[in-house]
């Protein structure tokens, strides 16, 4: 029997019981749809954060307390286990010929008040921060080395703080109160946007020396090092390591380049995305069991039909093809509709949670669809074999 005939016979078998075929298909539709949607979340988060890490610039080096790649070890979340200080930053800047600037950062949550109050991130840093991080000042000025050395109470606002505390008012020259200390506003930073749920513009920058006094700590949360050019990043990393180790007498810090951070992050996201896809894949497997279940019922119901077909000359492989094609057809059609459902799911998610980026990748579509086909094939084999092996005379006698 030709493939086309087998397809036609299989198709007739499916349309004979449309509701049942549809419900069976639903398992595959949901499975494929959820694989695509969940993977699109993982991929979306990955690509949006990757872009931001790349935005750091290829000549940027990050130093964090503790060991491990920056941003991936618990110590940066829980708090420092070692002490990096402003003096460390100055030493690196002074002693490495490959380093152009070092911007240490002391961060702490704080309340800023003008008329209204606002919880914000107080960031004590140096004059080079704006250049190192490549965030220009929108208007006014960033503070200077003189401000740092002179312990001057000046502040530069992030765009969100400006918007919330000074709506329609020029903040320059105004006084803002942060943790019971008055600061004169000398500048406002350009808008930087969000990373997922984190607002990068909800910050108040002050000279690092003032922050040390205000927060009562010399401990720096991280240091941004800018090498003289992208070519000497490696030297800058090596120098920083050497200088800091000499000063600390041990390696209680981690130095990472932008590309290390990127690959570490992408590694983690890859695992996460894989897990999301895997979880959704289980639902596809359940859909496959649904197919097998229905196919077994179908084979039993149609025992007489199988007997008749065999009696007039159907071979084993004809019957096998008929039932296998039925289950593969269910999974293929379910897979196609599932792809559409996945697109819709990712779209809806984006609409419902605008901060959650979703990116549909071709590989997730291909993998989900192929997996659905395989599931249909795999779970279809047993019922189809059962049908193909029926004895014609016994099948004809079946009541």
């Amino acid at each position, binding site marked *: 029997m030709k493939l086309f005939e087998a397809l036609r016979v299989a198709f*007739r078998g499916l349309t004979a019981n449309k509701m049942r075929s549809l419900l069976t298909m639903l398992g595959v539709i949901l499975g494929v749809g959820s694989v695509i949607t969940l993977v699109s979340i993982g991929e979306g988060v990955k690509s949006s954060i990757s872009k931001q890490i790349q935005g750091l610039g290829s000549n940027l080096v990050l130093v964090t307390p503790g060991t491990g790649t920056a941003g991936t070890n618990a110590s940066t979340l829980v708090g420092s286990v070692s002490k990096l200080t402003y003096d460390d930053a100055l030493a690196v800047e002074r002693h490495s010929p490959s380093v152009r600037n070092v911007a240490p950062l002391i961060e702490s949550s704080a309340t800023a008040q003008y008329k209204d109050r606002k919880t914000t991130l107080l960031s004590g840093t140096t004059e080079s921060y704006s250049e190192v991080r490549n965030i220009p000042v929108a208007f006014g000025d960033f503070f200077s080395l003189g401000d740092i050395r002179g312990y001057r109470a000046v502040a530069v606002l992030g765009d969100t703080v400006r918007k919330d505390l000074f709506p329609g008012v020029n903040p320059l020259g105004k006084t803002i109160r942060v943790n019971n200390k008055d600061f004169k506003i000398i500048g406002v930073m350009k808008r930087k946007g969000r990373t997922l749920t984190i607002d990068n513009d909800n910050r108040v920058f002050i000279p690092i020396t003032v922050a040390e006094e205000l927060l009562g700590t010399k401990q720096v949360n991280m240091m941004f090092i800018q090498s003289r050019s992208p070519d000497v990043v490696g030297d800058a990393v090596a120098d920083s390591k050497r200088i800091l180790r000499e000063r600390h007498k041990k390696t209680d810090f981690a130095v990472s380049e932008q590309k290390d951070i990127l690959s570490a992050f992408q590694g983690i996201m890859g695992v996460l995305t894989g897990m999301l896809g895997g979880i959704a894949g289980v639902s596809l497997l359940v859909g496959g069991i649904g197919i097998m279940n229905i196919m077994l019922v179908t084979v039993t119901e149609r025992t007489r039909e199988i007997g008749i077909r065999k009696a007039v000359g159907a071979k084993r492989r004809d019957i096998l093809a008929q039932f296998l094609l039925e289950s593969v057809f269910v999974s293929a059609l379910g897979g196609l509709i599932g792809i559409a459902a996945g697109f819709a799911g990712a779209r809806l998610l984006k609409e419902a949670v605008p901060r959650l980026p979703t990116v549909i990748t071709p590989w997730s579509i291909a993998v989900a669809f192929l997996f659905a086909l395989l599931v249909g094939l795999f779970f279809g084999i047993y019922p189809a074999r059962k049908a193909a092996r029926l004895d014609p005379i016994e099948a004809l006698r079946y009541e």
Partner: protein
Amino acid sequence: MVIKITDMYKNYGRGSSAVTALRKVNLEISPGEIIAIMGPSGSGKSTLMNIIGCLDRPTKGIYRFKGKNVNSLNDNQLAELRNKHIGFVFQNFNLLSRATALTNVELPMIYAGTPARKRRTIAMELLEVVGLQDRINHKPSELSGGQKQRVAVARALVNHPAVLLADEPTGNLDSKTGAEIMKLFDTLNGIGVTVILVTHDREVANYARRVVYIRDGEIVSDTRTSKESGEGKIPDQMPAGPKYPPSF
């Protein structure tokens, strides 16, 4: 010989519930014969037909179809044999209930690999032969018993079988429709098709030129008769006792 059965046995089940449906059956059928198999209910007629039709296998003994030893064929070879050489009209029609008359008749040709267009033409022709040209798109549930029987006959003929088997072909039919079917068989036999039919009906058996009588799985008589003198030759009551030959 188109069919040669030697010392054939068929057992069903095993142990205490074992049934010997056929015992020591010897039967030779030449091409072009028209033969009736008769016997009481449960005597093994259908069992014999299923084996002749290559649907079932004997427990013991040799069955040769057109000189080929059927015992040595596998399932797929048997399927091909059924498809190409044997037409089977079942007692209970055995039509696909969800398919139309036309599709049912086309079915053996699908498995023979006949192209769709040719299939359609042949199926239409045969449905016309059995007088169902205006019922081709009806499903079995929309057909009368006699019409279903005729669809089954048309289906049995599409691949031009050498042997046509019919198990109680008129069992569900009134005498008039039954006679029509028998005339069709007679015509087919006239063009050289070997026809084997099982029947309880003496009138039907009268169409045959040879009557094989089975009792308790054994052939107890095998009588040839000429068409001219056939009418009324088969007695209404078959004699009792296994060894007693029927008188004509």
